[in-house]
Every structure is written in C-alpha cells, then in structure tokens.
C-alpha cells in the first residue's frame, strides 16, 4: 500500500513519523499527546515513556519556568518561532535546541494544546564554531603569508647591497695592497652608497612594524578579544586550556583592530607556551576602565611567572626564548600599544603566573 492509498489522516501521521525533525504535541496542561520517532532519537525517551507524562521531563531545572509562558502564549493562539533554548536528554545531556510551537486546535477550532517542532542546534553550533575557527585560521595564514612575503622581499633587498659591499671591500684590500689610492677612494664611495641603501631598507622595516595599516576605529573590545582568542587557539591548540574573559559586552575602544589583535595574540601565545606541561592551565583576560579614563586590558596566565633574567629584557627587541619566534615580540607589541596612545607593562612578581597589562582609548 503506497502513500497515496492512505487516508489523509494516516498520510499526515506517516509524514510526521518519518520526519527528521522531532515533532511532539502536548495538551494545555503540558501533558505529552504525541511523540514522533525523531523525538525518541533526539531525547532518548520512547513515545511510551513520554505520552501521558509532563513535557517538563525534558526541561533542564533552570528552564522550568519557560513552560508556563509557552502555554500562556499558545492558549492565546500565538505561534512561537525558532525559540532557542535548552532541553535535557534522558541521559542527562543538555542540548541547545530551536523550538517552533503552534497551537493545536480541535475540529471546532478550539485550542486544545500545542504542537512543537524541536531542532537540535548542536550540529549547527559545531558548524558555527568551525567557521569561526576557519576564519581565524584564514586571517592567521594570510598574515603569515603576507609576513612571509615581506620577509623574503626584505632578505633579498638587504642581501643585494650587502653583496655589493662585500665585493667592494674585497676590491679595497687589493687596491690597498697595490697602492691604488684613487681606486680605493672610489670603492669607499660605492660602499657608502650601498650602506645608505641598507639604511633605507631598515627604515622600511620600522615603518612596516609601527605604522602599517593604522586605521583607528571604534571597535567592540569583547569581539576583538574573542577573535584574537580564536586565532591563538588555532595556532596553539590546547584542549585542557581554561580561558576566561571578563569584559563588558558593550565596551568600545578606539583601535586598529588587526594591530590590537596582534598584541593579544602574542600575549595569549606566550601564556599558552609558558604553561606547557602544567596540569592546571588557565588564562584570564579582563578589561576595565582605569583611573585616567582609558580601558586597561590584562592577560594573566597560571604559569611559573617571569624570571628576573627574562623580566629585565622583557620589552627589548629581538629577544625571544622561543625556537620558532613566530610571535612578533613584546617590543613590537609595546610599540603598537604606544602608537595607540596607551602603555604596556608586566605586573611585578606575584604569587602566580605572569600578568601583562596594556591600556587603550575608550570610544564613546
């Protein structure tokens, strides 16, 4: 017997049963009237276990009060669309879901209950998380590749004058040995020219680091931090790492987003690396207004803290304790913060790990 041979009612029932979405129905007292196969799969309760029982069986404790509100709206004939909430499976697992609720009417049109379609958001949450991670990775790769290209170009540009200087110096020795004063002077002039060329290249490095893309804009600090964290997590994955952020959701700062993220990225990575091998690994990022009306951001780790040797050299350029040195160095971070009219420093030795702080201008 094919689907077209069924009566309308039987056909509708078959459609509901075979739907991939969990579909349930309840009366105005919240008692379950119907429970399809997808609901059995999603919640772990069979239809026999649920029908005739309160729907609140699947409500987590902190969501119990929702039911009264839902019933009230439904009783008024209202529909609730894509309401995002949490429910609890038979095994105790809490799942994020999207619920669409419509009034159920009898033949006379009277509202006798509600029908609900429940969609599990776990997968779409996972997708969103994955998209965030991929985006962070893409930005990271773009920056690396941009950085990589810039560095290759630099190496090339420094090498050329260096080669020329090396050749002229070789020539100078021979000219001196031969007593050729004029030739010697000429070679020295050429060396001077090439030295100036190298100085220009060095200046370009400085410009690149401190002034590249300085576009100051009001930015939501919480979002800027979240993206930097996503980046850091992608670049230094650590399953057991506990990361907490305490920043007012509406805090606005006047910054170049990319540059401030570079600072945060650097501090986060340093923290993650300092805590490698420890059982308890935690990073806390906080932001709050300071006495001068700036926003002070702090990044604290639960690592061994800064040794006196390291503390001394902390903000000096080109100092790295890392084999790969992919971070830009604290000296550059400080340059960026100062270009934003802020200050950057590390807390004096305390009982815990390292705490780095920097200030940013508040926007509006």
């Amino acid at each position: 017997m094919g689907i077209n041979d069924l009566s309308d009612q039987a056909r509708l029932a078959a459609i509901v049963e075979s739907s991939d979405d969990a579909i349930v129905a309840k009366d105005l007292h919240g008692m379950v009237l119907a429970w399809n196969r997808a609901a059995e799969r999603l919640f772990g309760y069979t239809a026999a276990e649920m029908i005739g029982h309160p729907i609140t069986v699947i409500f987590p404790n902190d969501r119990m009060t929702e039911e009264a509100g839902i019933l009230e709206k439904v009783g008024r004939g209202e529909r609730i669309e894509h309401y995002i909430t949490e429910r609890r499976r038979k095994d105790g697992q809490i799942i994020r879901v999207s619920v669409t609720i419509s009034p159920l009417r009898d033949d006379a049109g009277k509202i006798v209950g509600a029908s609900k379609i429940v969609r599990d958001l776990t997968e779409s949450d996972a997708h969103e998380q994955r998209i965030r991670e991929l985006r962070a990775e893409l930005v990271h790769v773009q920056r690396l590749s941009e950085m990589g290209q810039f560095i290759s170009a630099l190496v090339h540009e420094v090498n050329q004058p260096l080669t020329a200087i090396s050749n002229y110096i070789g020539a100078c020795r021979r000219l001196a040995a031969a007593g050729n004063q004029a030739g010697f002077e000429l070679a020295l002039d050429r060396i001077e020219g090439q030295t100036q060329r190298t100085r220009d290249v060095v200046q370009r490095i400085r410009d690149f680091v401190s002034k590249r893309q300085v576009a100051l804009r009001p930015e939501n600090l919480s979002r800027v931090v979240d993206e930097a964290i996503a980046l850091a997590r992608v670049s230094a994955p650590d399953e057991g790492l506990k990361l907490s952020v305490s920043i007012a959701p509406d805090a606005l700062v006047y910054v170049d987003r990319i540059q401030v993220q570079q600072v945060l990225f650097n501090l986060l990575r340093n923290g993650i690396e300092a805590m490698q091998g420890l059982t308890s690994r935690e990073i806390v990022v906080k932001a709050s207004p300071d006495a001068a009306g700036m926003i002070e951001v702090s990044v604290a780790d639960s690592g061994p803290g800064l040794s006196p040797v390291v503390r001394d050299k902390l903000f000096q350029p080109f100092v790295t304790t890392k084999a790969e040195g992919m971070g830009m160095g604290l000296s550059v971070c400080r340059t960026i913060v100062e270009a934003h009219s802020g200050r950057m420093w590390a807390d004096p030795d305390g009982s815990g790990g390292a705490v780095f702080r920097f200030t940013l201008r508040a926007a509006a």
Partner: protein
Amino acid sequence: MPQRLPRIAIVDDDMAVLESTRFLLEISGHSAETFASPEDFLEESERAAFDRLIIDQHMPLLTGLEVVDRLRARGVNIPIMLLTGALTPDITTRARGMQLERVVEKPAGVQDLVDFVTARA
C-alpha cells in the same frame, strides 16, 4: 685551451651587484661584461661565446637556472657559477642536473669569485 684571458659574463638584475662584481674582477686583473637583462646576455652569447658565466638566480623575467637550461640546450658547456640569495633544496637539485661549477649563497666570498674566474678551463 685558450691562451687569451677568459671572456667573462656577469648577469644580475641588481646594478650595484653587477657593478661591484665587475669592479672586483677588474682589480684582480680580469675584464668582465655585465648584463642586467638575461635576454641581452643570451643574445650576445650567441654572437660571440663567453668562457665563464656568473649569474644570479632570482631575476624577474628569467631565473638563472632557466638561462643555464637554455645554454646547456644549445650545447654551451662553459663553467657557470650561480649566485642565490636563498639556497633551497629545490635549487640544489635542479643545479646538479645542469652541471653547474658552483652554487653559492650571496654574498659570495671574494676569493670564491676570483678563484672561479682564474681556474683553468
């Protein structure tokens, strides 16, 4: 074996490197012709053969190895010194297949350059 001084070509897109290499070789008693364009060099080498070639790898239009490839394809077997700003395994491998006398990272040692030019063919 030619008794005259070898005819040396230097090919590099950077004028300072080109000039300074020629300067050094001339002080050491050799003369060298310089080419900022590999195409010009290839044309000239067809007109009158060179005895030795010092060539840069990283050039915008044709790389050093590509020039060497064309020379070898033409049956030109002169000693060649390849200079590169960054010696990669890829370059080393390809160079081996083309019988390059030397592959050197820039800046080349002054003695290396002079030795290469004065060595007997």
